[in-house]
Every structure is written in C-alpha cells, then in structure tokens.
C-alpha cells in the first residue's frame, strides 16, 4: 500500500499519465494525517476503499497522505488535478483555501472539500454531523463521571470543534446539572505524545471522563492506565482501552463517497454543501462497552434513537451562550449555515475560546 502510494506520487512528479483500456473514473484523495492514524484519515481511507469495492474496475483511486495544511496542500492538489483525476476529495479544514484556489484553475475537475464552507461551481463541501455523536458522548460522560468534571481535548478552535464542545457539554448537562467541563487545546490534529500529555493534564485536574477531538487513540490509553474513562473518536478505538472505552463515535464516509462518484459517472454532479450524520449512516456508535451500568446504556440507546430519527436536534433553542446572550431563540434549530459559524460557548462553559 505504501509502495503503491509512493509509486503514484513518483508518477505524479514525473507528470506521467497512464493510458488505460476503458478509462476508469479517476478519484483522488488528500489526507492530512497518515492512513495508519486509526482516526480521521484512516476512516477517509476506509471510505476510499469503499468506492473501490463498490465500483471495481470502473474507478481508479489515488491518495496522498500526511499532507501539511497550507502551501504544500496546494501543490499536492494541483498535482492530483494535473494527473487527470476527475474528482478530488480534500479531507481537512485547513485544505479549504488551497482547494478553492486549485478548483479555480481546473474548471473541468470536480472538487469536494470536507468540513469547509466555501463553494464554487466545481467545488462542493461535505461535513459530518459529528456534533450528534458528541451530544451522545456528553450524555454518557455526564452519567459516568464521579467527580462531576469531564474533559475535552480540542485540536484547533474552529467552528467544527467549538460546535462539538458545545454539543458534548449540553449532552452532559442534560443528565447531570452539576457537571463541569475542562477544555485543553492541543494545537494539533495528530501527535500521540502530546495527546497523552493533554489527557494527563486533564486527569491531574480531576477529570475522570474524557472526550477528544484529536485523532489518535493515545488519550484512551492514558485513561486506561489510570483506571478512568474516555470516548473514542472517528474510528473504533475500543481495543486500545478495553476498560476505559465507553464507546467510539465512528465516521463512515463510504456512503457519501459512493453517492458522489456515481453522480459524476451519471453526469449529475453539482456543487452542494452536504451534511450527514446518524440518519445518513455516516456516523455510528461502535463497540459500546458491555461494562456500562444499565441505566447509562438505556439512556445512550434512547438518545441515539431520537437523534437518528430526526426527532431531536441538539442545537434547538432556547440556548444561551456563556456571556448570557440568547444564541439560539426558542423553537429554532440552527440551520447548517448557522452551525457552520458557531464561535461561542454555551452557558456553563467557563473558558474563553482562544483567539
């Protein structure tokens, strides 16, 4: 697999294009982390493999992993476009501006950027409603905490992460009015060592259940060592911490990727801002720990069911922000566009958002 990606990138460097008998649709992926991170990039790659499985010879996929956000990303995306890819998925928030730039230069290539908000004629965006999973995580954490202090390891203070922190806190608060949440920003998506430090810093300060928005299972391992609890992110991380693990909120991108590849094949692709969650089977709760108390399990199942059916939407007013202003009026649920711009903490979170 590694060798293949190496050869592919060498091919890109040489500007070579492969002539094939019946021209499969070429689909490129740009990942921010290594596919072996067992988190975010790993799941996107599972989505890519989902396409290959579904379409067989009719597609040819390529990926470039470990791409730094910024100027390097622009170079990589440009190369993928030049190499004749018909559809390119760029899978990290920081790839947004590079993708916008490259999309302008290659009007005949379709681009899709994950978690961004900028659209153009040949550039669509897609987002996971990870906040739905965080809300349920918050419910579980709020019920499981004995110290009434839960922790959250943030990556970068962007709307997606802030939104999820809010959702987690609202979930916890809904079952435990006394719950407090400590937030630590790791300033990285992926650094197992630093994530461990962040987890330990939180646990040193009385946190006994942890959520994280970074990609490695390191915080779960740290929690396991101390006999505390944590929730897995992006992929099923249960095997790293059989006792600590409450459940993992698992991303599943394949349904979306298959749909979009089909759209390009049918000539029906158009630029959209697509949001998918439990309802679209793009999120699931993986490996719910059998050692949870019965009432916690019941509550998790019930919350999942009400979110999945669409009956309950976490960001439904009245919700106040932590400065006392009304952030969501009564009887209003935030629209996707409003969700994309969440830059406030809900009432009860005592921290400030780093600027």
């Amino acid at each position, binding site marked *: *697999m*590694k*060798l293949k990606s*190496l050869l592919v990138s060498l091919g890109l460097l040489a500007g070579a294009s492969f002539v094939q008998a019946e021209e499969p649709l070429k689909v490129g992926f740009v990942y921010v982390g*290594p*596919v*072996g*991170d*067992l988190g975010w990039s790993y799941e996107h790659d599972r989505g890519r493999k989902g396409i290959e499985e579904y379409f067989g010879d009719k597609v040819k996929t390529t990926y470039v992993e*470990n791409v730094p956000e910024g100027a390097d990303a622009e170079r990589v995306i440009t190369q993928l476009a030049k190499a004749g890819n018909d559809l390119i998925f760029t899978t990290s928030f920081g790839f947004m501006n590079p993708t916008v730039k490259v999309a302008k230069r290659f009007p005949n290539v379709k681009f899709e950027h994950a978690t961004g908000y900028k659209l153009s004629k040949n550039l669509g965006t897609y987002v996971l409603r990870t906040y739905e999973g965080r809300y349920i995580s918050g419910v579980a954490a709020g019920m499981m905490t004995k110290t009434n202090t839960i*922790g959250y390891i943030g990556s970068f203070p962007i709307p997606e992460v802030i939104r999820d922190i809010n959702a987690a806190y609202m979930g916890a608060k809904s079952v435990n009015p006394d719950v407090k949440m*400590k*937030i*630590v*920003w*790791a*300033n*990285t998506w*992926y*650094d*197992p*060592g*630093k*994530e*461990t*430090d*962040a987890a*330990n*810093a*939180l646990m*040193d*300060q009385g*946190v006994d259940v942890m959520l994280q928005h970074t990609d*490695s*299972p*390191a915080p779960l*391992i*740290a929690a396991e060592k101390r006999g505390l609890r944590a929730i897995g992110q992006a992929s099923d991380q249960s*095997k*790293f911490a059989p006792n600590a693990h409450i459940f993992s909120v698992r991303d599943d991108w394949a349904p979306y990727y298959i749909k979009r590849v089909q759209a390009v094949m049918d000539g029906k692709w158009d630029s959209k801002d697509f949001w998918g969650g439990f309802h679209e089977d793009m999120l699931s709760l993986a490996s719910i720990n059998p050692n949870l108390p019965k009432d916690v399990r019941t509550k998790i199942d019930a919350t999942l069911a009400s979110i999945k059916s669409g009956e309950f939407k976490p960001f439904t007013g009245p919700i106040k922000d932590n400065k006392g202003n009304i952030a969501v009026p009564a009887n209003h649920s935030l629209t996707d566009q409003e969700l994309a711009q969440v830059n406030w903490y809900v009432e009860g979170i*005592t*921290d*400030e958002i*780093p*600027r």
Partner: protein
Amino acid sequence: MDSDLIVQILFAAVKTGTPLLFIALGEVICEKSGVLNLGQEGMMLMGAVVGFLAAYGTGSAGLGVLSAMLMGCVMSLIFAVLVLHLGANQVATGLALTIFGTGLSAFIGSGVVGQTIQGFQPIAVPLLSDIPYLGKILFSHDILVYASFTMTFVLMFVVNKTRIGLTLKAVGENPHAANAIGIKVLRVRYLAVMFGGVMAGISGAYMSLVYTPMWVENMTAGRGWIALALVVFASWRVGRIMLGAYLFGLASIMHLVLQGLGWSISPNLLAMLPYVATVVVMVIISADKFKEKLLAPRSLGKPFDPRQMA
C-alpha cells in the same frame, strides 16, 4: 495551584523530557565528533516500530528496547558509511535518512497498527521515592527514565573527565591535528555516529513502549527535530541537555495544564515557548563576547579526508 498539582506537573515534565533527553544525548556525542546527523527523526521512528514489534512478538519490553537499539545502530551505520566512507553531504544524507525511516517504519509497522502491549511499568525506587515531593517527581518512574539519568551522568563524566572525551573533542575540533597525533579519526566518528543511532533507538522505544504504548505511523511527531534544537540550546554541553530536555518538557506540559486551570493565555503563545527559548539562547550565545563559549565543534558537518591537509 496546589502542591499536588505542581508535583504532577514536574513529574510529567520529566516524563515528557525523557525521549528528548535520550535522543539529544546521542546527537550531542555524534556532533562532538564533528558529524551532523539530521536523520534523528527517522532513526527514532525505526526504533519505535522495531521496539514495538519485538515487544509485541516476544512479550518482553526489555527485548523491545534491545531491538530498538540495534535498529538505531543499523540505521546510523547506513548513514556513517555514506558520509564517512563515501564523503556524502551530511545534511542531505541525514534528511534522506529521516525520509527513509519515516516511510520504512510505516511500511513494516502496518501489521501491528492497533495492537497494544504491556509496556514498562513504573518502579518506585526504595527510600528515594519516599522523599517528599522529589521522590514522586524523580523516583517513581519506569526503568528507562532511571537509565536516562544514569546515561547523562556517565556521559558528563566521560566527555569531561576522560581520555575518551578528549579524543572525541579533538576529532570534532580538528580532525587533521587529531590524525597527526595518531588518533583514528574515522573510527572515532563511526563509534560516535553509532552511539547516536543507539540512543535514537532507545528514544523511539520509549515512545512506543512507555509513553504511548502502541504503534501508529509517524508517532514521534517531530521530536527528533526538537532534539537537534536542544543540542544547540545546550551549546553542546551534556549537562545542559538534561536541563534543556526537562525545560522543553515543562513548557509543553504547562501549555496544557494552564488551559485546564482556565488561565486565559493563548495556547498558541504557550506552544511557542520552547522554540522562543531556543531562539533567545541562540541570540545570547551568538553575541561576540559569548562566542568563545559557544562550543560548536569546529569541524561540524565537514567531511574528513586524511589525504588532504587542513
């Protein structure tokens, strides 16, 4: 901030500093012989993956560390042959070694991604660990941390007080003069480079066996590069490497702890601290009157060919 928390912070700083200490000790010895090896990150990753594989296969963390040391040594030998025998550019070869190690470690580790092992467990040192505060901070770690203490003091002694140390410095300062008095320059450099590789291997094993006992791609996340900065920060003095490693550790811990306490300091600013500290030290020691004290080996990065005279 209560005293318990301070103890916890300092304990964590030592732990965070340990992989940096190992790898920087190796690099400083390598550089003292006049060889600059930028392949630290690659050697560290190879140490991490091989250490993990061995520990996973045999169930013994000790064998894991030994294998990591061996792997680090092999990696450094590749580097040594290229730069010492074939006279390849040290900077370019070092960078290539890092790229090579990053890719190869991901490749050979792909089978154990997601596996977990029982790494080293903490051992409280009898008596010493009962000292209030200090006992917890320094003497309730795992065996590799104690090994890093020992290694620091042994190296301080060897470099500053023994003939071996003198020889090493002579080769790094002026290989031609050293050659003229009968020192086998290449042999000394080979040994120094290999020592650096062995230490990078242990450092990697520390990451995958103790710190975050697992293997995932690129898990050292740039610590090999920090080690290079640390050597400069310590101005090539062994004792200061230890101080520097723990300062780096402390700065990265504080940046996380203070946020949990709700201090409204920008985490970005705090994350920057260790690097700011390095720059400040660089500026200070580069000032003219301190220049003599900047102990950079004079032949650092230059190849040695006994047929040419200085």
